[in-house]
């Protein structure tokens, strides 16, 4: 097996070194953990709220909450699922408090949208629109599978930890979901 192939097969699970045989998370670790996770947490939150300012605000809240509660994290190896669980809760709070539903800030997104899809052929634009519509009609858990896997870029093991479901089950449901979506978008 060549190097590239082998590396592609590596499941990139977040890990932390054991410092002197203990599992203590130090402040230096936290900064590193923040750097490793910040972009994906932001993207995940953006995919929920579809607004850059709100996503940044929620990402800030997420990491501040994580920092405050860091001593409660018993197993530092679980930092990523833990911080995404906090992010999910922040998103739920966001919608609950304001009785908002996931929306898109029309003015803010339009320019970027036009720029993005303007580069695509009409057929591809239509296909993407169909796909977006199909995704919006998925049940909340299925949408969450896609966000955590594709947007947050998490391995199945960590998605399993966040959603408290067995990894194998999530894998199975995820790939079935992809198959279904692909069949629908190509029909």
């Amino acid at each position, binding site marked *: 097996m060549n190097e590239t192939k082998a590396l592609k097969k590596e499941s990139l699970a977040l890990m932390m070194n054991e410092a002197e045989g203990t599992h203590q998370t130090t402040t230096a670790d936290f900064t590193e953990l923040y750097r490793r996770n910040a972009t994906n947490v932001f993207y995940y939150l953006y995919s929920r709220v579809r607004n850059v300012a709100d996503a940044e605000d929620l990402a800030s809240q997420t990491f501040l909450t994580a920092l405050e509660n860091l001593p409660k994290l018993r197993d530092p190896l679980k930092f990523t699922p833990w911080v995404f669980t906090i992010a999910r809760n922040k998103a739920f709070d966001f919608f609950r408090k304001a009785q908002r539903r996931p929306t898109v800030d029309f003015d803010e997104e339009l320019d970027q949208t036009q720029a993005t899809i303007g580069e695509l052929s009409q057929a591809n634009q239509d296909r*993407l629109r169909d796909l977006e519509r199909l995704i919006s009609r998925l049940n909340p*858990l299925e949408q969450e599978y896609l966000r955590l896997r594709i947007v947050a870029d998490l391995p199945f093991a960590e998605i399993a930890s966040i959603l408290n479901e067995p990894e194998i089950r999530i894998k199975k449901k995820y790939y079935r979901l992809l198959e279904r979506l692909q069949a629908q978008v190509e029909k």
Partner: protein
Amino acid sequence: MNDLNPFEKEIKQTYRLPEVNPAYFKQLEAKLQAKQPHPEASARPVFHIARGWAYAVATLLLIGVMVIAIGPSKVLAQIQAVFGFVPNVGLVDTSSPFRQLAQPASDTRDGVTLDIQSAFLSADGTIITYTMSDLPTEIKHSRFGEPECNLPAYLTLPDGSRIEAAGSSSGNSPDGSYAYSIRFSDPVPVNFNQATLVFPCLVGTVRGKGPEDWQFTLIFKPAPENLAVYPATLIPSQAQIENPVLATVEPATQPRTETGIPVMPAMIVDGDRQEEMVVLSVVEKPDSYWVTWAYPDKSDDGIQRNGYLYEQPFNPVLYDANGTQLPVPDHETQLELWEYEDSLRNQLSDQEGLLYDSTLHTFVVPKSGILYPVYARQNVYERSFPEKEEYVDVEFDGSKVQASDEPVEINREIQIGSVKFMLNAIGKNQFGGYSFLFDGTEGNVVQCQAGLVGYTTNMGGSSSFNPDDPFHFKQAEMYSQIPTGMLTVRVSQPAVLGERISFIGSWSPEK
């Protein structure tokens, strides 16, 4: 980073992720650093029980108290219910009569026609199916960036109470039309034969355009007695574990014994040893049975990497008593089986879910043309972690590794307790760190933990199990700033591949 296939990349495009703003991330990092306590303040007490563990302990204690108070058989009785499998609906509680829509409802507003085609009400929920005509262009969500309606429909009951949707899906219905389904997990009480289905807005429309708060009065009536409901039996697994059916079964080459009772053909058990797989449920269909087997999943939580105690690179297979392997179902049937398994999982108790959720598998067993009993087999490899605390340190020149395009040969024997394997080479990896290449042939090692001493890595990975070459494996560690110079890698927690276990389950209709 996940290796996304082209379709996943297309999905990613639909989220229209913006460029990140580096200034924002820097500001937040500075804010976090300013708020960070001194390291000693963040240290955990030695005996700290996380809240999750406290809940787990409390749950176990509660189960224990229940068992003591009312006895195990009554606990099992609590989790048993009467179920049936209804095609396109799933596994449903049959303890109260089913109801359905008295008549379809239809209405047209703003150029859109909604047809509420069906409703299915059972003791454990309601499923409503509808179709929708093509949306007029002026209300249709067709541009990225437009806010789209995504408020789910809900039910209101005559007493004013409201039932929220638990999920929704869409796809081709059995008649080929494109239909939408809404699932409500709270049942409509039997004393209400009417409810109002409310669409705050319509899926696929731009928010604020198109019909809003569209209401349909639904009248329910008893479902016809000839409704296809296939009897389903959920078998509490504890009862089977207490009475293992295969514990005394010996492999034999003859399909029948002198007493006429068929025994397992020898070729079925091809593992080093045999363990029991239990039947979780049986659905009787006109020409076949759907039989779901599972084996108990196990893992070692003390392992930093994959702590699963079974490696499952094999597909499950089904044999009849003659030793004939039965064919796998076609694609359509397989999709139905998966749907069924999902509805079965929802019915498993928490305890059963922990044990069987990821290992259950449903086979289609023909009613005729085969010799019963049938035997389901799932081969797995056993994994063990005989040395969890010991480790070996190996020094190497990190600068040399990072300067080389090819892995640098190390060829160092690793002996951790009784487990021997080789660290063959160390290479740089594309994510910024080191890949450690091992050969576990001598000690049957298929995985280990490897990390640089004195450096904090927060990203790591390992090669997946390759059944054709299981003992050559790789472990990678990544760093924000790649350490170089003379380094020490600490190797620990080797996973040793053990015997191939054949989990076997048998079943026949008369059981």
